[in-house]
């Protein structure tokens, strides 16, 4: 997750901006406002120490800092340096080279952006809201002035003025030296010095450029809009914003073209004297690298990619996307051509806007919003108008040429994400070309008379928007990837889709085809009986899906009217959101340790508090059971410096560790209790209790923290229900005594099974001993339920067992009060429960307790589910 720090000379400005964003974008976004100077922070200025505090307070692993100007930049840089040194004391002497590149500390990646404060902050926040990371947010922030510029068109004016200046200078130069008719030479360089082409190296290039009789231009190949700069303008070079690791192309014309290129090559090779080795990249080598390196996600000639689930049955339809031929024509009236071209862009934009309206879900419509932005890019349109004007050529040709250049830029990107975006560029290219060439602004509706399976060489997002979905049974493509925008759209539209090149080879016009978008299986011209099977399967799937979707958020009530709470196991805010979507009635297990496992440093109280409150807020008031730190065992936490044990599962883990490490437990409990103020239905659960004293000591600790918070006047929920996990055999025998203290019980079946069966769950050879449907485990669960209910305590269950349909029937029968599971299993389990009847489940469960092996139990359950409910394999 990404957090945002806003730095302004004025505290009021920074805070108001934060308020504005929270109102416009989202209340819960992790944003910290910094600003003002002096003790009261009421003087204008910025304070690096405040920015450090902001960095420390944000629990996110990525942070983007946006500031106004002047000292806000200096203070931010200073804060970053100090933060780095504080967290990496061993390498404190960084004075030699402070890189402005992303600085990864303790898994925190922090960047300072030059984006405009207000626009940049809003664009970045939208990216955070969409769940995107630092890189995308930074690109968006840096480009956040584009919409405004295109609306007000003043950047065009600026460019016009600048261009006039450049032109007049160029023509002056041309008069001086008329001999630059020589062939143009060019070379691509990778810039390696830490600060990129900042002022000093840029100045060096200007020097070189002016000492040769050659006209040199530079181009940053790693910016989406390739800006060009004359090599004799310091400003223009600086505006290329060439960062470390980016490629520039240097073109040279004139008598000393080669010499000047050589001189620049030498300078870049020695890194402008700034140290660190360098790589020269000749043009041809660059071409080699343009092929994507990471092809994992793309279907090779043999593999089948299951892109979008669902079964498709039907006749195939080869979609002929007529390749639009573009010819180069000379035109007589460039002004008119440009005007027409602009109209075409307008119609294309209108088409896209109509498609945005078509996709109601935000994420999907954003795909087309991005297309709209690309189309509206004033730089691009200017270049094309210029091309038409100067070369007196038709707009289709100018458009194809320019767009091809842009496409190849994306295509050659190192990032898989950006490479996939080249498909979007192709989509825009074809959309505009179709309007230009067919002279019709009608959308590209494909004509077909009956519902079919559509076959594509390659699918584009606009194909999906253009097609009449009632005629699309499924889609097969020869090329594609799981992450492309068209694949995302297929999934969101529920259109079954696979990418299968060898299937495409086999298929002929009129063929019948069946395929399963979940498994990738397919059959061409299936026999009558086979077809029937597929049809049946499809109907079952469809019915199930409908039922699941319609009822996911309803409570799970059995036929006899008994309600079973179906809760989610979660580890973070994302899980919490998913569990709400999947219809969880609450959270039965919030694993707080996940927040500790992936970091090198123990999160402090504030960080934990932020994280926990976010999760609680995401659950929108429904019940949340927070389990205190359960580390040790298989969950090692590197930052704690805990010694490795011989028998970790039988060692210092869960509450045993917490009671030994109060330095850890205390702030952890404070964070949980503070976060409890966000909720009326928070409960605390203690893991790994194996004797009564474990629980009472934990209780004591919680009370201490409560009194502390109370005396500090910090709001929290009190009294708060406190319960425990039942996962050790000893706790089962002590349950009556434990019930005196514990408000509720939750059975952890994974550990309970391994301890009962005395078989390590990390040894694959002992897998057969890990089946929680073993009669020993089931009898144990039944004992727990009976004992707890006798004392009026509720029993939940939160192991993997809960999501097993067979187990559901038994656990329901044994009287478990609620089940907590992986959020994705919830709709399925709720649906199954609605088909059960308490008495029947009870009878069955008690009967199963008499069995002597898990295999017998599973066989019996399979038969039961088959006869009484549904297909057990699903």
């Amino acid at each position: 997750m990404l957090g945002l720090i806003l730095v302004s000379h004025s505290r009021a400005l920074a805070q108001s901006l934060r308020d504005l964003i929270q109102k416009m974008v989202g209340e819960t976004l992790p944003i910290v406002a910094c600003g003002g100077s002096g003790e009261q922070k009421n003087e204008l200025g910025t304070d690096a120490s405040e920015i450090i505090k902001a960095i420390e307070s944000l629990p996110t692993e990525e942070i983007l800092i946006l500031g106004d100007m002047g000292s806000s930049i200096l203070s931010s840089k200073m804060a970053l340096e100090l933060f780095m040194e504080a967290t990496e004391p061993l390498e404190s002497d960084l004075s030699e080279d402070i890189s402005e590149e992303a600085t990864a500390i303790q898994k925190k990646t922090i960047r300072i952006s030059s984006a405009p404060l207000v626009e940049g902050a809003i664009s970045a926040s939208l990216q955070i809201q969409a769940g995107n990371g630092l890189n995308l947010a930074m690109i968006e922030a840096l480009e956040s002035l584009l919409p405004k510029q295109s609306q007000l068109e003043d950047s065009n004016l600026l460019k016009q003025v600048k261009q006039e200046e450049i032109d007049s200078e160029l023509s002056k130069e041309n008069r001086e030296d008329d001999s630059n008719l020589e062939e143009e030479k060019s070379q691509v360089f990778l810039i390696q010095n830490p600060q990129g082409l900042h002022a000093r190296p840029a100045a060096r290039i200007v020097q070189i450029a002016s000492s040769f009789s050659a006209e040199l231009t530079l181009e940053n190949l790693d910016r989406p809009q390739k800006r060009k700069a004359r090599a004799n303008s310091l400003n223009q070079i600086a505006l290329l914003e060439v960062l470390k690791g980016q490629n520039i192309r240097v073109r040279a014309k004139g008598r000393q073209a080669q010499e000047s290129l050589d001189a620049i090559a030498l300078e870049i090779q020695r890194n402008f004297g700034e140290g660190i080795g360098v790589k020269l990249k000749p043009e041809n080598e660059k071409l080699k690298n343009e092929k994507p390196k990471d092809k994992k996600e793309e279907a090779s000639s043999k593999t089948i990619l299951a892109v979008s689930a669902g079964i498709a049955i039907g006749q195939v339809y080869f979609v002929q996307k007529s390749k639009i031929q573009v010819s180069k024509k000379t035109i007589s009236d460039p002004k008119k051509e440009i005007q027409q071209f602009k109209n075409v862009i307008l119609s294309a934009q209108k088409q896209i806007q109509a498609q945005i309206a078509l996709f109601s879900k935000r994420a999907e419509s954003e795909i087309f919003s991005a297309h709209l932005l690309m189309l509206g890019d004033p730089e691009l349109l200017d270049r094309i108008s210029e091309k038409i004007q100067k070369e007196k050529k038709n707009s289709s040709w100018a458009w194809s040429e320019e767009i091809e250049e842009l496409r190849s830029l994306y295509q050659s990107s190192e990032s898989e994400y950006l490479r996939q975006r080249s498909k979007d560029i192709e989509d825009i290219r074809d959309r505009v070309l179709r309007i230009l060439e067919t002279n019709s602004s009608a959308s590209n509706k494909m004509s077909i008379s009956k519902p079919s399976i559509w076959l594509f060489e390659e699918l584009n997002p606009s194909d999906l928007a253009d097609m009449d979905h009632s005629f699309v049974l499924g889609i097969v493509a020869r090329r594609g990837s799981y992450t492309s925008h068209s694949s995302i759209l297929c999934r969101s539209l529920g259109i079954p889709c696979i990418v299968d090149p060898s299937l495409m080879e086999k298929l002929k016009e009129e063929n019948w085809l069946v395929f399963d978008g979940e498994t990738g299986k397919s059959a061409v011209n299936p026999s009558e009986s086979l077809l029937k099977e597929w049809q049946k399967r499809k109907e079952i799937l469809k019915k199930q899906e409908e039922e699941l979707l319609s009822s996911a958020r309803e409570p799970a009530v059995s036929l006899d009217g008994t309600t079973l709470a179906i809760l989610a196991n979660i580890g973070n805010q994302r899980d919490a959101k998913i569990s709400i979507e999947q219809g969880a009635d609450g959270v039965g297990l919030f694993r707080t340790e996940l927040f500790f496992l992936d970091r090198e440093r123990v999160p402090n109280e504030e960080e934990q508090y932020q994280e926990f409150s976010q999760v609680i807020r995401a659950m929108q008031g429904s019940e949340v059971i927070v389990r205190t730190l359960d580390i040790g065992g298989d969950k090692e936490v590197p930052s704690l410096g805990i010694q490795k044990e011989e028998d970790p599962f039988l060692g210092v883990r869960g509450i045993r560790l917490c009671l030994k490490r109060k330095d850890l437990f205390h702030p952890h409990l404070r964070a949980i209790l503070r976060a409890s103020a966000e909720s009326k239905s928070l409960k605390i659960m203690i893991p790994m209790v194996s004797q009564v004293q474990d629980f009472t000591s934990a209780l004591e600790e919680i009370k201490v923290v409560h009194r502390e918070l109370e005396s500090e006047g910090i709001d929290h929920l009190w009294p708060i229900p406190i319960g425990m996990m039942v996962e050790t055999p000893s706790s089962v025998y002590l349950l009556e005594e434990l019930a005196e203290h514990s408000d509720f019980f939750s059975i952890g079946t994974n550990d309970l099974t391994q301890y009962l069966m005395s078989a390590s769950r990390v040894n694959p050879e002992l897998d057969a001993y890990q089946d929680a449907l073993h009669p020993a485990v089931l009898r144990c669960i039944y004992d727990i339920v009976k004992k707890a209910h006798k004392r009026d305590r509720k029993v939940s269950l939160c192991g993997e067992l809960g999501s097993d349909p067979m187990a559901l029937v038994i656990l329901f029968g044994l009287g478990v009060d609620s089940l907590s599971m992986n959020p994705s299993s919830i709709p399925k389990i709720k649906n199954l429960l609605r088909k059960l009847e308490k008495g029947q489940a009870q009878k069955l469960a008690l009967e199963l307790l008499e069995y002597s092996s898990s295999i017998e139990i599973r066989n019996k359950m399979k038969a039961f589910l088959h006869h009484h409910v549904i297909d057990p394999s699903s």
Partner: protein
Amino acid sequence: MVELEDLKQWILNLQEVYTENKEYLTDLDSAIGDADHGINMARGFNKVKEEIEKGTFSDVPSFFSLVGMTLIKTVGGASGPLYGALFLYGGKAVAEESQSLSAEDIRKIFQKGYDRVSSLGKSSPGEKTMLDAWKPALESMEKYQDQGIQVMLTEAVQSAEKGMKSTIDMLATKGRASYLGERSIGHQDPGATSTFLMLETASKIWR
């Protein structure tokens, strides 16, 4: 040798110097900047004085770090992080727990501080900044450090003054003054001036 007490006296004197020169520095700044340099420096050193008098330092590095952090927190403008860096990092040039400074130690402290200021501001001499006073001063310190603190500082102050005056003819390319472009020429840089004052005050106290 410069003892901790001398360092303290230097700062206490600097507070007076910057308070006396508040308007002078602000006037210089109003020609090419935000008209706040004098106010900012005076505010910063008032707070530094308060902190120093609390006496929460035990050696040279902790002294410099206290001054640096206080400036960062209270000066506000660009000179906050810049002078802050000068002190904060400068103090790291000598051994932990050092109680006194030789001529060479003094040079090392300013040199290290200078390097950080230069990298933080992404600037080098010739851009009409405080570096234009520091650079010649440091060169003199290197040259005269073997002749004792007094000689070294006297020479350094003279060089700093020359450096400060050389900024009058310079074109600003960094900071607020750079917005003025050619119009920044003809004015003395306030940052170079406050640097000169800093060194001049030291030379009067450290013997």
